[in-house]
């Protein structure tokens, strides 16, 4: 999954916007955005943070600066265990041409010590948007790990895994009420890119436009899972 290959595949399956959200890591997001320059594909930069509770939360930003600040918070609250490539694979950093730019030696697959509220606060402070990911999965999904939506959840939308349709999700979890739902491919390999898509009516690929879409402001809309 090199940056140019991700862009080529995303354009090829007809996506207009993607988000790069490595687990607890921001090191490849800028390279994918650079690789997409001139392609027509917009790239939101972000991270999938694993909270202390064991919940996965997507944190999306327009710019790298606040994402890098979130990364510093994550580094400060991540166990310092080294990665074992034989067990967990390499954690490579690639440039926009897909060439090796380095690797991350710290194990990224563990939980941070940051609780859900702290992750949301850090993300909001940087102008970012939180969306708990695959909320219906027993592994790291908010609704399964914490049982139901926390009263103080700031996220304006929830991501549902591809296993459930919107109707199934709302029936299984009545507590989500009218909160907007999105579907992402959670692609860990090129073939999965575009597997699940969400249709937005927005004027540009930005965090602000997504917020407006979730709120239904000024003609923007989140139309749910694309057929």
């Amino acid at each position, binding site marked *: 999954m090199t940056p140019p290959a991700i862009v080529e595949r995303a354009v090829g399956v007809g996506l207009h916007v993607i988000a790069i959200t490595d687990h607890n890591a921001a090191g490849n997001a800028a390279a994918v955005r650079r690789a997409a320059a001139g392609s027509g594909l917009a790239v939101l930069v972000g991270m999938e943070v694993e909270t202390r509770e064991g919940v996965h939360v997507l944190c999306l930003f327009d710019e790298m600066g606040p994402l890098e600040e979130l990364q510093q918070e994550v580094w400060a609250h991540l166990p310092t265990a080294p990665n074992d490539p034989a067990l967990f694979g390499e954690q490579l950093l690639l440039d926009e041409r897909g060439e090796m730019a380095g690797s991350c030696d710290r194990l990224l697959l563990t939980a941070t010590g940051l609780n859900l509220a702290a992750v949301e606060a850090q993300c909001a402070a940087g102008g970012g948007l939180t969306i708990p990911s695959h909320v219906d999965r027993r592994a790291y999904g908010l609704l399964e790990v*914490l049982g139901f939506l*926390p009263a103080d959840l700031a996220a304006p939308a929830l991501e549902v895994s591809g296993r459930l349709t919107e109707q199934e999700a709302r029936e299984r979890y009545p507590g989500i009420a009218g909160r907007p739902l999105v579907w992402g491919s959670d692609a860990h390999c090129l073939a999965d890119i575009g597997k699940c898509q969400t249709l937005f009516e927005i004027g540009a690929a930005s965090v602000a436009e997504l917020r407006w879409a979730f709120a239904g402001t000024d003609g923007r809309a989140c139309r749910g899972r694309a057929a």
Partner: protein
Amino acid sequence: MRLAQIAAELDLQPRSAQASLERAVTGGHVGDLLSAVMAQAKPGQVWVTVQVHPNIVAVAVLLGLAGIIVAANGEPEAGTLARAEAEGVPILCTGLGAFEVAGRLYELGVR
């Protein structure tokens, strides 16, 4: 067995709702996946977990649990303790791991 006796035997630190420590404990449950706890734990049980999020209090109230033992040096969030106090849910903390807490409870006759 009363929660207060369990707290004394295992040297647990009561952190909320100490007036409710005289509750009878009718069994135990160990788990950190709250959806599974909601499906499996029974009223009157004491619940051993490493989760410290405020949602644990709601789960305990919903199920009528006797109390929550936060294992492995977990530090309940301020919002969790406030809610537990308001709802009368005893939270007891310990440095013991969940495995050892469960074993000690079993030895005490909590089954």
